[in-house]
Each structure stands twice: as structure tokens, then as C-alpha cells.
């Protein structure tokens, strides 16, 4: 039992070390690449543009529901005028970055992991090696840097449409004073809050992209049985680990930001 625990912790630590080495290489390999701009554009299309619809839809409905829920809570204390503040702060600080990141992992992270995994099995990664092309630089780095750009942008889209969603239910449907709604937001939300929210998005972008590409890149080692089954296994793992990592990092970053 204890030896099993020990083995698991050693595996966990060594996996962490591998991931760290992989991350380092992914981060620094971009400048060595040709056609950086073209690759970045391609990656931004996958991670950014393609995720806009889902982000807007989820953002809008999150705002609508939050407006409804918080209105009924706040009515009990006759503090409906706080609705704008409550909606905006919860979206900007927590829900926006976390939901957006989970949505992007579902849409782009899973695709990324599966694609790289299949490329590994089809010997395309070995082919890059033999062509003297750095596979991590070619496949992972552009996506990593694209995620660093796309996550904060998508989170901002989510935030804005979510706050608008809260306005739709709170003001249009339930009759909160529009001036109170917006002025409360302007008063309560500081630049620091917005910055803190975007820092989260930035970190989530890095962490999830690395986890997803790491799982795909080493699907032949990580999966129990390499092959199609292996890719499905590592892709599932990529999504699950990414989602856990989002929440763990959310907690860590929040406690760090609160401590400031």
C-alpha cells in the first residue's frame, strides 16, 4: 500500500518534470521557426476564431441566469440595486475566465490533443524529426502563443456579453433601474479586478494548451495501448486534466490575488 503510494507519487513527480521540460521547449521554440506569423494565424484561427460562437452563447446564458438568480437573492435584502455589481464582479473575477477556459478546452483543446496524438501515431512527428524540423516548435509553440493571445480576448467577450445578459434579465425583464445597474458596475469594478480576471485567462491558456498538447504528443507512451484507443484515452485525459487544472489554478491565483 505504502509502496504503491510511493510509486504513484514518484510517477506524479516525474510526469510533472516531463511536463515542465516540454513546456520550456514549447515556450522557447517559436523564434527558431520559419513562417511564425502564418503558423500563429492558423493556430489563432483554431483556438480563437472558432471558439467565438460557443463563448458568446455560453457567456450570454450565464449572464441571463446570473441576473435571474442574483435578483431573487438580492430582493430578499431589498438590495436589487446591487445586481449590476454582483453580476459584473462574479463574471469578471471568476465565471468569465473559468467558463471560457473550459469551453475552449472542449472546443479546441480536445481537437489539439487528438490531432497531435494522431500525428504521433502516423509517424508524422518522427517525419518532422528526420526533416530536421523541431516538432515541438512546429506543432506546439504556435498554439501555445496563440492561446496566450486568444484566452484573454475570448474571456473579455464572455465578460461583456455576460454583463449584458445580466442587464437583459435584471433590467429589461425584472425591472431593476438601468442607471443603478450600470453605475453600480462602474463603481464596483476596478481596473485591478479586470486585470486579475485576465491574468487568470492568461494562465489558463498556457496551462491547458500545454496539458492538451503534452498528452497528444506522448500518446504512444502515456496511453495504456498506443493506437486509436490510445488517442481517445489521452484526449479524454487532456480534457479532464485541463479542467481540473483550471479549477486548481483558479483557486491558487485567487488566493494569491486576495493576499495582495
Amino acid at each position, binding site marked *: 500500500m505504502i509502496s504503491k503510494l510511493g510509486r504513484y507519487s514518484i510517477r506524479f513527480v516525474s510526469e510533472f518534470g516531463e511536463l515542465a521540460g516540454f513546456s520550456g521547449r514549447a515556450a522557447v521554440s517559436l523564434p527558431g*521557426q*520559419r*513562417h511564425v506569423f502564418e503558423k500563429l494565424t492558423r493556430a489563432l484561427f483554431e483556438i480563437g476564431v472558432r471558439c467565438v460562437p460557443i463563448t458568446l452563447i455560453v457567456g450570454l446564458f450565464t449572464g441571463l441566469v446570473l441576473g435571474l438568480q442574483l435578483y431573487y437573492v438580492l430582493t430578499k435584502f431589498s438590495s436589487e440595486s446591487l445586481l449590476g455589481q454582483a453580476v459584473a464582479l462574479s463574471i469578471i473575477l471568476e465565471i468569465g475566465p473559468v467558463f471560457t477556459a473550459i469551453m475552449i478546452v472542449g472546443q479546441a483543446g480536445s481537437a489539439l490533443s487528438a490531432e497531435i496524438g494522431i*500525428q504521433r501515431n*502516423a*509517424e*508524422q512527428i*518522427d*517525419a518532422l*524529426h*528526420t*526533416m*530536421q*524540423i523541431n516538432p515541438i516548435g*512546429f506543432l506546439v509553440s504556435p498554439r501555445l502563443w496563440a492561446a496566450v493571445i486568444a484566452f484573454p480576448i475570448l474571456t473579455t467577450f464572455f465578460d461583456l456579453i455576460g454583463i449584458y445578459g445580466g442587464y437583459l434579465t435584471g433590467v429589461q425583464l425584472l425591472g431593476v433601474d438601468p442607471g443603478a445597474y450600470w453605475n453600480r458596475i462602474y463603481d464596483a469594478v476596478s481596473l485591478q479586478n479586470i486585470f486579475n480576471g485576465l491574468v487568470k485567462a492568461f494562465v489558463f491558456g498556457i496551462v491547458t494548451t500545454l496539458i492538451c498538447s503534452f498528452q497528444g504528443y506522448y500518446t504512444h507512451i502515456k496511453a495504456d495501448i498506443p493506437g486509436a484507443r490510445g488517442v481517445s484515452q489521452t484526449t479524454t485525459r487532456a480534457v479532464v486534466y485541463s479542467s481540473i487544472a483550471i479549477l486548481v489554478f483558479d483557486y491558487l491565483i485567487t488566493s494569491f490575488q486576495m493576499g495582495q
Partner: protein
Amino acid sequence: MSNDSHLQLKGLSKAFGSQTVLDRIDLDIPLGEHTTVIGKSGTGKSVLLKCISGLLASDSGTISASGKQGIPSCSYMFQQNALFDSMTVEENVALPLRETGKAGKEEIEQRVGDMLAQLELSPASKKYPAEISGGMKKRAALARALITSPEIILFDEPTTGLDPQRKYAVFDMIRDYRKRFGFTVVMVSHDVPEVFEISDHIAWLDEGKIKFWGTPKQLAENTPDALKPFLNPKLASA
């Protein structure tokens, strides 16, 4: 034998954990000719190719070509072609030039166009790998391997899973293009005895060692006893 015209492997060893796959292999492969490595599945033939190409680092030993130390300029033909399915044939062939080397855009276009024409791929240049036939995919992969003008091309079981007719088509293709371009072929294959027709030399890899080296004719005249069941499976079952 002079060192100048050989790909020389000296004391090449590779082990995975406690399992020794290559055991101090010494081999002089003549450049410009066709050498086929045969052997049972799982005896490390692919590992040998991967060590030559630098995909795997050998545990010990040296590799030199034409007397120069180090991994020679070589291209690797993968079993499944390893073409990028999100790129057209043209883009696949251009990839090594676009990502490495000094060629400018026009030069790349020129060279890729010439290469596609020589391999009769011009009509398929804008198509994706999924849209072309198996034989064309092989040729596209060969075009990508040839575009950097390597000295050596390593073929990893190029005919696995093909019917006999296609198998001969692939062997003919390799023979024809080798004559035309003059590259060295090091091939791993299971397809005995068909592969003997196009090979200049045969190396038999067994238990991590080269147990036979010679021309197909020498092999036919003087087959080692241990190799007989492999060449003629009926003998083994009888």
C-alpha cells in the same frame, strides 16, 4: 573497401531497458546501391534505420558516411508515408525546404514543381493526401524525401499491407527512381524473395547481429541454415 563510398556503422548498439536490440553492429553499406535488411519481425530492423537517421540515439558506436563522422544527410520513408493530411501534396513536398535550408520562395516553387513533374504527380499537386491513391501517396512521400537531395533514403517496410501487384509497383518505383536520381537505398523489408530482384546487397539481422551479408546471388547459393525457414516458411512447418 575504401571508406569513401560507404555508409559505415561501427560497434552500433542499442538497448531498451534490459533488452538488447542491436549488439555491436559493424556494417559497410556501399553508397549509391540498394541494400535490403531482412529479418524476423521485432528483431530491430526499424531500430537500425532509426539509429542511422538519428531518430533514435544509439547507446554506443559510430556512424560515418564517405569517411565523415556523424549522421549522414538522409531522408526516411515511413511505413504509413507520414504525409500531413491538412496540407496539399505540393505543400507536403515543399515542407522540408520551407522549414529548413536557405531556398527562397521562387526557388522552392521551382524545385517542388520539377520534383512533382518527375514523379508524375503534377496533376495531384493541389490535392490532399486523403484524395489520392495509395501509390500516389508513396510517390508523394518519396518526392518529399528527395526534395532535399539526400545521399541516402531509408525505406521502412514500404510494401507492408500491399497486394502483390502494388508491391511490385512500389519496388519498380524505387528501382527506377534510384537509377534516375542516384541515391543510396537502405531498406527494411519482409518481402522475400521478391525484394532480392531489386537489391544489390542483403543484410540479415538476427538476435541483434548481422548474420549474413552479401549479394542476393550469394545468398541463394549459400543460404545459412538458420535463414532457410525464414526464406521458405513451408520448410519450417514441415
